[in-house]
């Protein structure tokens, strides 16, 4: 029995229309605290739009979003992050011409409260180095601490992105296709990182790779044409004939 207090994120009738085209329609999403929750669906189902709505990068046309019992429908995107819900992007989001350490430091420095201090030397941020190095080590990038992010291989950029996100110690992570464009070896590594991060957090992710979804997630929501088709565990969802019809294709196991 799911009670309201166990939900960290909930939407009520979330809808987004772009000039007559309804990308997301009446979505009631419920994410349990501490879960790894996957959002799947065919291309154009509205998964990324839902992400953009949740993190306020897009304003909803209708509906409400509640995070930690608080209505965040009108909150600005930067403030959503401050409330503890931090997102990643489909295209790897690093600061290309900053070193691995500096990438992580950007996330660490905000709580210092000196981010508007244009008269203070940047060396005042060196106090953050031990914490930054710890985070970088944890994602296996210790050897690249001085390397500009632009020179990292794609899989390592994704690892850096996770280290940067974790630097904020958010309650909830929103990962937009964390495995997109990764080779098999990297997928294993990033899966481990996500699982580790989820030990003390909630994760909501959009992902196409179904074996990753099956492997990682507790709950799956299937989206088609902007609407929720089914919700449940991987076994439940994959047994649903409608889902097999609409998403996986009838021939798929």
């Amino acid at each position: 029995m799911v009670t309201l207090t166990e939900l960290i994120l909930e939407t009520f009738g979330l809808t987004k229309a772009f000039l007559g085209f309804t990308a997301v329609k009446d979505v009631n999403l419920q994410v349990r605290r501490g879960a790894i929750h996957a959002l799947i669906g065919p291309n154009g189902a509205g998964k990324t739009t839902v992400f953009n709505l949740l993190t306020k990068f897009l304003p909803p046309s209708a509906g409400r979003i509640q995070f930690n019992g608080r209505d965040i429908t009108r909150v600005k995107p930067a403030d959503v992050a401050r409330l503890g819900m931090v997102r990643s992007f489909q295209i790897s989001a690093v600061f290309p011409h900053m070193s691995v350490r500096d990438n992580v430091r950007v996330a660490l420095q905000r709580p210092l409260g000196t981010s508007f201090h244009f008269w203070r030397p940047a060396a005042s941020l060196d106090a953050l180095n031990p914490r930054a190095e710890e985070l970088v080590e944890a994602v296996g990038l210790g050897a690249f601490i001085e390397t500009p992010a632009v020179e990292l291989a794609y899989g390592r950029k994704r690892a850096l992105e996770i280290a940067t996100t974790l630097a904020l110690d958010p309650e909830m992570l929103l990962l937009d296709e964390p495995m997109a464009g990764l080779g098999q070896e990297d997928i294993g590594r990033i899966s481990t990182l996500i699982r580790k991060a989820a030990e003390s957090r909630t994760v909501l992710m959009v992902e196409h790779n179904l074996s990753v979804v099956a492997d990682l997630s507790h709950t799956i929501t299937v989206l088609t044409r902007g609407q929720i088709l089914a919700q449940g565990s991987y076994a439940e969802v994959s047994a649903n004939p409608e889902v097999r019809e609409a998403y996986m294709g009838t021939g798929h196991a």
Partner: protein
Amino acid sequence: MKQLPFLIMLAALLVAPFVVYPLFLANALCLALFACAFNLLAGYSGLLSFGHSAFLGTAGYITAYTTKSWGYPPELAILLGVAASSLLGALFGFLAIRRQGLYFAMVTLALAQMVYFVCLQAPFTGGENGIQPVPRGHLFGVIDLSPNMTMYYFALGIFLIGYGIIYRTIHSPYGRVLKAISENEPRAVSLGYRVDQYKLLAFVLSAGLSGLAGSTKVLVYQLGSLADVSFGTSGEVLLMVLIGGLGTVMGPVIGAFIVATMVNYLAQYGSWVTVIQGVIFVVCVLIFRRGVAGEAMALARRWRLRAGAVAKP
């Protein structure tokens, strides 16, 4: 070792007035500060403004008017100019940062054209004639700025203060956030930064420092003129920064001296100056994109890499 280029520049600026006409140099220093201020916005915040002449010119008029009509001392007149341009910058910034890229540039251009029109029509600016002669006065009531040599070293001092503020800003906690925003704005937002506030501060700082340049410039040639608020000046500062190297600390200074020299020594060819500037602009954008300072840094890096490869085979 890292400060070597700066020390060379400083030494050159200290002895230059014994070789070259001091007022030409002082004017070039003002343009250099203007270019550095523009670069703080364009090079380090990724915001391209087409309206920076408004800040240079407005501060210039304020300083010219308060010294000539009210007899204010230069330091106070400059301070008032900087305050005015900072306020104007806050207004421009507030309206423009809501838009991105080309739209941002267009909003700044439109606002600057409005300022130009006001300056053309307002009674206190002297219209086409400008305000002249602007008295240089006595700095802190003691140092007479009328000798050209004294004026030059005063302008050098102002330039160094402005340059120092910009250098510190770039290398501050705030500067790191600014760089992050210019590199990947959505990511900076997702890390919890309210980027509009950071951009607004960058805009105000850039406008204030442009004003500092404008106020000093007025004292150099003792003229508050319509040219300083005109669109041509906004274009010229972009040219200086591109020639020198966008997003490099010293590039804009080099660019400003190159453009100032061009304008000065090519003046005999009349309107051909504009054509020559246009050609240089196109060449820079097409094949010389990192500017003088940027190309020099890339060259130095390549040499160091080659030397390193030889040292440890």
